[in-house]
């Protein structure tokens, strides 16, 4: 199967005609995101993202491995995204569809290839051992705009994650447990996010953060990946109808605004979680069972 049930012609026309009158099905503006909720689990690097009805869980994990032979100074960072029947009944378990490879490719480009995570800082001992950071994306509910949601999840996860401290002593690598030494935050060089636009009506209408139905009714998508400073690290116009060049110019400033907004939401959620953790840690430490 591996394909969502197509929209009926009436439904498609309804969405399109409503957009011609500047109305979206859920009453949003054309340049408005759905409500975004970022929450963290108990472990470091466990993020839950809820973007409208799209929801996903990102888990970041680390382990010590041998670096690639051609890059002895670099650690390894992988993004693993697998679409399962949980997210949508149209996806088949254990079989890679077009959407999966497309989304993984975009995430790789926006986050990994833009060097958001400084892989050189993951090196422990040149050519012998390094940290391998893995981001697992579990899509639990799919209602459009998978790429932006996954991007937000991975970036929030990377900023939230703490890896165990590792030290080299006399050529020996010692990894300290999380309760032995304060775990180390990852080195994030910049915070890129992707913003997806969909075009309708021969490129005349452009909307942000489309739901699944809007995605299906759209003609083409335009993807802009950029960071807080406004550095564009990825632009794509993957398929569908041609889009006017001015759309890219105009929408990249909209995207910048949105990226700043979302990064703010992530920062706030991170701060809230850190203060909560700091409180419980103090309580733990001051418990009577501990040595003074």
């Amino acid at each position, binding site marked *: *199967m591996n394909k969502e049930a197509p929209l009926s012609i009436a439904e498609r026309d309804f969405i399109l005609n409503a957009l011609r009158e500047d109305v979206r099905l859920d009453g949003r503006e054309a340049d408005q995101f759905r409500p975004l909720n970022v929450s963290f*689990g*108990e*472990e470091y690097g*466990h993020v839950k993202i809820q973007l409208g*009805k799209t*929801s996903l*869980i990102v*888990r*970041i*994990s680390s382990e010590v491995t041998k670096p690639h032979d051609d890059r002895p100074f670099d650690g390894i960072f992988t993004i*693993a995204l*697998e679409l*399962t*029947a*949980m*997210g*949508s*009944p149209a996806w*088949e*378990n*254990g079989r890679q569809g077009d959407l999966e490879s497309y989304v993984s490719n975009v995430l790789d480009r926006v986050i990994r290839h833009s060097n958001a995570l400084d892989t050189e800082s993951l090196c422990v001992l040149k050519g012998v051992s390094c940290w391998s950071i*893995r981001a*697992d994306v*579990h899509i*639990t*509910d*799919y*209602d459009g705009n998978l790429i932006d949601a996954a991007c937000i999840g991975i970036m929030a996860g990377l900023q939230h994650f703490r890896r165990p401290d590792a030290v080299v002593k006399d050529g020996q690598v010692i990894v300290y447990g999380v309760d032995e030494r304060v775990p180390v935050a990852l080195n994030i060089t910049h915070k890129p996010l992707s913003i997806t636009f969909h075009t309708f009506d021969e490129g005349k209408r452009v909307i942000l953060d489309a739901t699944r139905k809007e995605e299906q009714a759209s003609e083409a998508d335009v993807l802009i990946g950029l960071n807080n400073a406004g550095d564009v690290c990825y632009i794509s116009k993957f398929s569908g109808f041609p889009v006017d060049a001015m759309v890219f110019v105009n929408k990249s400033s909209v995207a910048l605004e949105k990226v700043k907004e979302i990064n703010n939401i992530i920062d706030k959620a991170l701060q809230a979680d850190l203060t909560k953790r700091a409180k419980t840690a103090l309580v733990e430490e001051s418990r009577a069972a501990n040595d003074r």
Partner: protein
Amino acid sequence: MVGPTASLTPLSRADGSASYQCPSTGSNILGSVNAPIELPGRRDALRPEDATVEVFVKPGTAPGGVGERYVEGIIKNMLTKLILGREKGYARRGVVITLAIVGGESVGRGDSYLTLLPALLHTALLALLSASVPLSMTFSATVLAVDASGKITREPSPKEAATATSLHVFAFSSNGHLLLSESQGPFEFKTWENVHQRALAICHGTLARSSDGDVAMAEDVDGQPLEGALREVVEDKIHLDYAWKIDAP
């Protein structure tokens, strides 16, 4: 002993779903069921009058491998026998069960899934109930670790499981019949008997069977029997969903 916490139908796209958290093993599983759905051709050729059950276990922080395929086989074999695949609308269709490990420690490469198996089974059961898939019976399952001194630990943490000499997983039907017994490590038959007794007590309480075959559940050291805990989760959900009907005058 703190019982598991679970919730029914947390997801909106899947036909049925359940999230399940076991406090002692620390595992957190999210399960979804899509049924009955159309399967791509030829997969039902062997048994055209029955539904095909597919189980997919997605590890939290590692790529799937042999361990997952093995535990999928165990779950699938057990659930195929419980799901009434010949009911109307189910023949030649698929029942797709997806279980994602979204919290807790992951199973290491090459380690066994026995510590997680009861949580996976419970999640699958609750998700099946949430999707209203016809079942012949419900069940409850538990895992027990036996250490070198013969001490039995209920639902061991990953650390305890690593030091145990043998691990045992049992599943009992709602009538108290043994449905599944998976063991790992060396043990004697007498140990198995003991563990089996303890598991039955955990799942069903100390058995007091009345003349009509009904099982009365009683609480003891193990707290509320698992069978009852799972039943309560479903009862609560039904009560919530039908509040409009129940509270109406």
